[in-house]
């Protein structure tokens, strides 16, 4: 069976595309799929650091597209998770070295070798974005509950629709306490403006920072709320579309006390 190319994009930078890409990729691999994660951010390579694979890079995606190596040579196998591969970006080139035709040719090969290919799109809507979405079968739009992120996501959704892709939404970095206090948009507010299918809600989690800096997969940390949310998203993408979406809730101290009294988990 042919694999599926999923592009992860957002328009705005710093909303968690790279974290989402690595986490969803890792979670899909844990589900037993053969997964390739492709860093499309040519010139600003990040994904290898987040996955802790930076010192194993020999070839990169530019080498593959320009026929200097085979996909197998560029794909780095993850040590901890079986069936998880990273095809890194080039740090020394810029986005213009890749052409959409080149990407389409490689996409065909990737589909035949993997079950899921997750493409980490760069921020912006220029060449890098075009290259990332040109051969995508599905698109995930990451958005944080900020007015500026919502506007950029809205723009990107319009561009994806124009390419006959129906994107799905992940709302990242939700802080239920702030939503409660009215300091932050709620995911309902975000959905009202963007009105596309929601595939997951990811709460704010400090573990993400630790995981990125130490290069350990977030989804392997059992006590990470964000990691759990990404695992759920991966299951939804992997065919369990009906899996209910958990709302991040803010537990008041009162509720925490009651929970403790009755011996419930916090």
């Amino acid at each position: 069976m042919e694999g599926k190319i999923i592009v992860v994009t957002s328009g705005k930078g710093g909303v968690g595309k790279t974290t989402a890409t690595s986490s969803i990729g890792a979670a899909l691999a844990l589900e037993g799929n053969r997964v390739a994660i492709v860093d499309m951010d040519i010139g600003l390579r990040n994904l290898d650091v987040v996955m802790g694979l930076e010192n194993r890079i020999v070839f990169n995606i530019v080498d593959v597209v320009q026929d200097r190596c085979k996909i197998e040579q560029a794909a780095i196998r993850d040590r901890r998770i079986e069936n998880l591969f990273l095809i890194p970006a080039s740090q020394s080139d810029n986005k213009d070295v890749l052409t959409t035709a080149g990407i389409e040719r490689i996409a065909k090969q990737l589909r035949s070798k993997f079950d899921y290919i997750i493409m980490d799109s760069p921020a912006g809507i220029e060449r890098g974005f075009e290259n990332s979405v040109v051969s995508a079968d599905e698109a995930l739009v990451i958005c944080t509950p900020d007015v500026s992120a919502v506007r950029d996501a809205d723009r990107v959704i319009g561009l994806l629709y124009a390419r006959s892709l129906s994107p799905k939404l992940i709302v990242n970095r939700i802080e239920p306490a702030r939503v409660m206090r009215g300091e932050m948009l709620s995911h309902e507010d975000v959905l009202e403006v963007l009105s596309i299918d929601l595939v997951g809600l990811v709460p704010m989690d400090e573990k993400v920072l630790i995981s990125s800096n130490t290069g350990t997969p977030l989804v392997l940390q059992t006590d990470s709320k964000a990691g759990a949310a990404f695992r759920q998203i991966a299951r939804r993408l992997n065919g369990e579309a009906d899996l209910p979406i958990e709302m991040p809730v803010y537990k008041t101290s009162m509720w925490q006390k009651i929970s403790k009294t009755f011996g419930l988990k916090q």
Partner: protein
Amino acid sequence: MIHFKNAAPVKIKGVGGGLWISLDPSRPEDLLITEVDKIFKKLKHLAVNASVVIDMGDAPGHEDLFALVKTRLIEKFEVGRVTSPPKKQSVPTQRIRQRDLFKGWNHHRSDVLMLRGRVRSGQKIDTRRHVVIFGDVNPGAEILAGGDIIVLGRLSGKVHAGNPENETAIVFALAFDPTSIKIGTITAAGSEETSHAMPEFACVKNKSILVQDYMKTNPFKKMPWPEAV
């Protein structure tokens, strides 16, 4: 034998509750006066207190003749009231009104661009016609219309109605919250307050943009008949 060229300079007929006198103002004044006298003498007491309409055709500038005939009729023949014929409605107004009677809109070509769905950030709708949108206009979206802009949803984007200089255009939205609004050549910034959930409309009054509650000041309330646009 009938001489069409020499048709009678003064004709009379009975209409509704009175008399209708048609005068040919191109004929000499004396002739017209004698003809009027002749006719009214024959009428005798029928003319007393009658309501008379003097019709001098469409040609303008015969007020003197009208006044002369009017005083003569009132003083000499004791008619009750002398008026000029009611003004005919202009052709377009008449045609618009008749649309209702004859279902004229069945073959009316619409001047409206009607869209369904969400207008997203970065999308721009530019038309010389009126725009009706069934859906929301997100922040960052832009709408330019030669005529009115009607949004049956939340309007949060940037709008310019009456582009380039039609200041009679209006902007209406079920939830009116645009980032900026321009009608004709006049611009206004959006309100600082967020979450307006009211049906409001904007129009130009005294060279500035006025936003009003649609339910209180419906701009179409006073239009007595439906008009196709």
